């Protein structure tokens, strides 16, 4: 890429920008964790990060390799048991944003992290649900981040692990659950659900990416939001903070 950043950096920065200062965010490991910590280190210093290992208000200096790295506990406001984090904090309605990654996702933001192929005879056995089914339905809203590609954004899921919208879902009436997925960030752009159909549509393209590229990398016939935008490029401050975070992380995990 001729720009001064990579597609992966653009994705992480675009996702970080969506998190507001003071938001209580239940964070998945990997890409969500990178974006949420970047938000904390840039525009959202008061964001409350919660990991399913029971760490509440954690402030790691490097990205955790696992959901239960020691630094998550050492820098947390408090550490509670795993039953408590799911019962009192997630089910108790304390989470503003659930931030999830995915292996496969459909146009309604439903996620598969269970199997490729038939459940009883999978061609690929994936790790499974973890905390996602309840995060997806009990957080106030859900952000999803994954790399764009036809095998990731698929026409039909092999397994619905964590529910997004059902076709024609009118979640406002449900009362007992959150609003569901409100945004999907990829390395090509930002997708948001159509207000009527709930289908994820292309709302913003990252700089240098074309509509044709995004459509070609999507497993369903990708529609455009009426006000399709271009994502503002990363600022020097955002890139500097992200690269410093990743350098610290590599050193800490012994990868240099």
């Amino acid at each position, binding site marked *: 890429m001729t720009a001064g950043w990579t597609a992966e950096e653009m994705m992480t920065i675009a996702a970080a920008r969506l998190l507001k200062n003071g938001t209580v965010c239940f964070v998945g*490991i*990997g890409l969500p964790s990178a974006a949420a910590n970047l938000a904390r280190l840039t525009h959202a210093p008061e964001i409350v990060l919660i990991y*399913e*290992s*029971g*760490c509440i208000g954690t402030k790691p200096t490097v990205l*955790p*390799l*696992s*959901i*239960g*790295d*020691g630094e*998550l*506990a*050492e820098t947390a406001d408090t*550490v509670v*048991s*795993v*039953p408590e984090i*799911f*019962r009192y904090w*997630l*089910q108790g309605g304390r989470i503003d944003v659930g931030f999830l990654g995915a292996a496969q996702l459909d146009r309604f933001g*439903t996620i598969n992290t*269970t199997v490729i192929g038939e*459940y*009883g005879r*999978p*061609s*690929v*056995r994936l*790790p*499974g*649900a*973890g*905390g*996602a*089914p*309840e995060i997806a*339905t*009990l957080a106030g809203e859900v952000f999803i981040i994954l790399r764009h590609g036809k095998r990731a954004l698929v026409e039909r899921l092999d*397994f*619905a*692990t*964590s*529910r997004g919208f*059902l076709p024609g879902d009118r979640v406002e009436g449900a009362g*007992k*659950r959150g609003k569901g997925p409100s945004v999907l960030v990829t390395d090509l752009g930002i997708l948001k659900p159509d207000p009527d159909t709930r289908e994820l549509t292309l709302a913003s393209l990252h700089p240098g990416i074309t509509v044709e590229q995004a459509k070609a990398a999507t497993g369903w016939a990708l529609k455009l939001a009426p006000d399709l935008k271009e994502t503002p490029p990363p600022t020097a401050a955002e890139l500097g903070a992200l690269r410093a975070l990743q350098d610290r992380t590599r050193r800490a*995990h*012994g990868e240099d």
Partner: protein
Amino acid sequence: MAEITTLSQAVAGLVRDGDTVAMEGFTHLIPHAAGHELIRQRRVGLTLVRMTPDLVYDQLIGMGAARKLVFSWGGNPGVGSLHRFRDAVETGWPKPLEIEEHSHAGLANAYAAGAANLPFAVLRGYVGSDLPKHNRMIRTLRCPFTGEELAAVPAIRPDVAVIHAQKADRKGNVLIWGIVGVQKEAVLAAKRAIVTVEEIVEHLDAPPNALVLPSWVVDAVVPVPGGAHPSFAAGYSKRDNRFYKDWDAVSRERESFRDWMERHVLGTRDFAEYRRSLEGAR
């Protein structure tokens, strides 16, 4: 009252073939040393329960100790797949593995129900997920007060819970801190409990609300310094991230896995000797 004993005696006396065994630890305090002892003593037909089966369950499954796995996330954290788990599910090697699959919220609630001596747990869970289609242990019920539909999962009541903790005193009272996962619930839900600890001390010096498991809810306490490795014990050790990454290559092929297990686990008498054999290999 807990007996302070050795790992070989604790496993020989408390874990039987065919038992339901919950070896808990949420990334932190994973009882690896105890898992190895189950492998050395050739336990078979086990139903293994754990929210996050990782390397030690990969090893037990690959060595043919398990008949069934009850779990909610089975991967190598931050690295990728558990290859021995995948091989068992995808091809039935070394033997077919029955799976009962939940979400974290479902299993965490099921442990809490077991500890509370309830037949099942109730939660707002699994909404819109395909998991209940494949796991008949996930059902729904109506709240008798509001009519609301809720998910229900049966309580987990293991024959044996096995955990690793930081300290015990000479009476066998156990102190745990940091990421405490679901260990307290697992111990209180189980018929028998084995706890390995970093050290035995004169006094726990625990503040009043600390997580202490009294000696009389534990059957065996075993000092095994570093017994969570490659997992860690807050205050004693750091997570060995390199080991988790290296395990990917070791476990990818059946032969390299078997060789590694023969050399480092079956070929050693105890965890200390295992650690020395690893040092020699590095």
